[in-house]
């Protein structure tokens, strides 16, 4: 019996123990941070998430880069640029820089990279970030096959000319965005899908990739061939892929990490007074969508009444409690040069009057409605409070319905709802990243709402080059969205939570919650 049984167990146990004991363990990186779930990809053309963006921004550098304090575009691989008077042609003058394998990086690399992102077979989710470039959309849709018709061209090794469809005021913000980062042609042609693996990857940023284990960790070390290597003070950065934010926090608290992005909401209150806790307004808004194609929310008065019956202050003070800011507009505060409209106030009396005017005095005769959200405690808590407010102030019964994430997305996309939770995180610091969502038939509109004047204004803003005028146009458009028509009901602006040790220096608060590793350093006080 034991002759059969014992070796069956003992041999593998001994083997595993031997492997564990002999496996080489790297020395701890200078900064170890909890990155969140496993990165989906490190291919700049394919990535879509913020956590991947944080890693890729350390590995690659675009024509421009974010200023660490105010996020304005500052010279990256382009040492300077010229914009034509009509705002349509950008000429970038590249510095002489090289890849992490010491090969030179030229304007042709940008042409190759952008072409790769736009090729239909690359199937890049964010290819539309390049649609501002002349004919880029047609190329991505397969309508034209000749890339020379797309408005990107290397005039010589170090000059890149980009022609846009329309003057795009935020184009220099986009050139810092991951989708527009350069990738190395030789590396991709050599390794194919495997080019992002450590050992294969060639990059051009402040760091290079040396280790990447799935669901475990990723390690980057300083790239000595980076053009601005003298500025880079960190020698190594490690990103831990930890799915559960609670586990991430445990690790931080017990010294396993130096930096944690995001926090478990229930403990935010407890951490508020600590010197390693940092919070800032974030470029993201939590809102509800109304399905305007169906009764009763086809009537703007009903939508407005619903909006006016919600005390958002109560939601942020007693429900979310993370320091979120009540929202009356879709565009969060902190957008340079932009003065948002006022939105609608909390006014139950006016709300009741509007509802009565729409034919439902004191909520009488109001049909059954459902409020849909994706399954999560946070969404449920908010929905319950909102449900109470509508009952109290409008006399309307609303049923709460939750669905699993992908089912929820499909329901909302098919306009198979009445009121649904929405959320939007801006890509760049310009009102357009929020407002262009709600143009007629916009892919992210998902309310069925359409307003010709609104469409026209968003169109106008896209062609306007004078900042003040553009911002006025956006204000007028947003007024339609959040004061007159309300296909959406803004609830609050998100805040970002970061927690990092006091010896981590060079982190500056900003609304994108972007904190480039390039500018950080460690400064321990001598004890």
């Amino acid at each position, binding site marked *: 019996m034991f002759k059969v049984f014992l070796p069956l167990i003992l041999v593998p146990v001994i083997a595993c123990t031997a492997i*564990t004991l002999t496996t080489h363990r790297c020395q701890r990186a200078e900064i170890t941070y909890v990155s969140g779930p496993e990165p*989906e990809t490190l291919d700049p053309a394919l990535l879509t998430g913020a956590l991947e963006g944080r890693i890729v921004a350390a590995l690659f550098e675009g024509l421009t880069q974010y200023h660490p304090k105010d996020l304005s575009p500052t010279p990256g691989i382009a040492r300077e640029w010229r914009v034509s008077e009509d705002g349509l042609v950008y000429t970038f003058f590249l510095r002489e820089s090289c890849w992490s394998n010491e090969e030179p990086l030229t304007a042709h690399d940008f042409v190759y990279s952008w072409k790769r992102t736009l090729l239909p077979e690359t199937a890049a989710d964010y290819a539309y970030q390049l649609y501002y470039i002349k004919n880029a959309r047609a190329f991505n849709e397969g309508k034209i096959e000749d890339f020379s018709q797309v408005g990107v061209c290397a005039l010589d090794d170090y000059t890149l000319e980009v022609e846009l469809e329309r003057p795009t005021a935020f184009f220099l913000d986009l050139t810092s965005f991951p989708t527009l980062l350069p990738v190395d042609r030789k590396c991709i042609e050599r390794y194919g899908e495997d080019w992002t693996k450590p050992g294969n990857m060639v990059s051009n940023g402040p760091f290079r990739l040396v280790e990447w*284990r799935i669901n475990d960790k990723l390690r980057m070390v300083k790239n000595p061939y980076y053009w601005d290597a003298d500025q880079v003070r960190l020698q190594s950065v490690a990103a831990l892929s930890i799915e559960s934010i609670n*586990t991430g926090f445990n690790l931080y*608290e*017990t010294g396993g990490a130096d930096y944690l992005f995001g926090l478990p909401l229930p403990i935010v209150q407890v951490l508020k007074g600590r010197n390693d806790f940092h919070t800032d307004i974030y470029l993201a808004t939590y809102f509800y969508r109304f399905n305007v194609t169906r009764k009763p929310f086809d009537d703007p008065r009903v939508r407005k009444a619903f909006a006016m019956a919600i005390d958002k202050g109560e939601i942020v003070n007693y429900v979310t409690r993370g320091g979120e800011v009540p929202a009356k507009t879709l565009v969060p505060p902190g957008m340079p040069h932009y003065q948002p409209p006022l939105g609608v106030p909390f006014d139950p009396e006016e709300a009741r009057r509007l509802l009565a005017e729409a034919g439902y005095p004191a909520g009488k005769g109001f049909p059954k409605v459902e409020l849909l959200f994706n399954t999560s405690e946070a969404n449920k808590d908010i929905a319950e409070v909102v449900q109470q407010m509508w009952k109290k102030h409008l006399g309307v019964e609303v049923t709460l319905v939750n669905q699993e994430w*992908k*089912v929820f997305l499909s329901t909302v996309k098919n306009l198979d709802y009445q009121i649904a939770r929405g959320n939007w995180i801006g890509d760049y610091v310009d009102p357009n990243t929020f407002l262009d969502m709600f143009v007629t038939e916009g*892919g992210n509109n998902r309310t069925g709402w359409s307003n010709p004047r609104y469409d026209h204004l968003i169109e106008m803003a896209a062609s306007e080059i004078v900042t003040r005028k553009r911002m006025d146009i956006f204000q007028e458009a947003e007024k339609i969205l959040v004061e007159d028509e309300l296909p959406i009901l803004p609830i609050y602006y998100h805040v970002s939570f970061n927690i990092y040790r006091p010896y981590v220096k060079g982190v500056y608060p900003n609304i994108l919650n972007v904190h480039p590793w390039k500018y950080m350093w460690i400064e321990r006080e001598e004890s």
Partner: protein
Amino acid sequence: MAGGQSLAAYILRRLGWLVVVLLIIATASFFLMRFAPGGPFDKERNLPEAIEKNLRAKYHLDKPLWKQYFIYMGGLFQGDLGPSFKYRNRTVNEIIAESFPVSAMLGLYALSLAIIVGVATGTLAALKKHTAFDFAAMSVAMLGISLPNFFLGLILLLIFCFKLPLLPAGGWGGPDHLVLPVLSLAAPFTAYIARLTRVSMLEVLSQPYIRTARAKGLTEFRVVTRHALKNAITPVVSYLGPAAAAVLTGSVVVEKIFAIPGLGSHFVNAALNRDYTLVMGTVLLYSLLLVLFNLMVDIIYFFTDPRVRL
């Protein structure tokens, strides 16, 4: 010799069935997955139509379902589980190759610990029937069965990471990373095995042949290890098949609490993400393991229990 031949034939027959079972599971899960609402490319932000079309073309989702099925099965027969939909630069084979050894190692330690501690405790409790030891051991075992392992994991974390900072709160790499997850994972199995062993041992100890062994003047230690345990352990062996599979699947929660890069998280997340190929890969792997473990248990029976005829 005859026994050897029949064993080989038996194993071959079971392996033949295994292929059939896996084919049925692959087919059922392929279609079930596709009928779930929402798809791998549905995200908070909608994709422009042309881009979604590119994505669907890349992953063959633009083809009719039956064609997709044959493409997938064609790959499967060559051992290719396809590319992951979510992890864009990785194949399912790669993900499993990297994650499974971690779960397997964790499961192996947990199961070994459960067998050693469980059998020893159960045997002692049976020998010291109705004493304080018996009572205490069985109470602890009852607790071990009823406590969910995430709760135990959190208690262990609180004690050994926060109150007494002796062990890391999560991660993978060294022996110190193994202690808490192995303990949390092993606890319910240890408890179950202990109870199982005790009951079975009590029954065996009352058998006439044990009396004979004692009458021969053998020491109690020898009676128990040479004669009693051999028979008493049979129920434990039959429990090991499902237990081994349960240790691997049950590690989902433990892996999450201790940030262990095993297969557990993929098992759940792949379904939530509609990562069709990764779901298929993990489902097939677990099915394969379950069937193989059960087969192994039957083979062990063949060697340990002369009454068993395959």
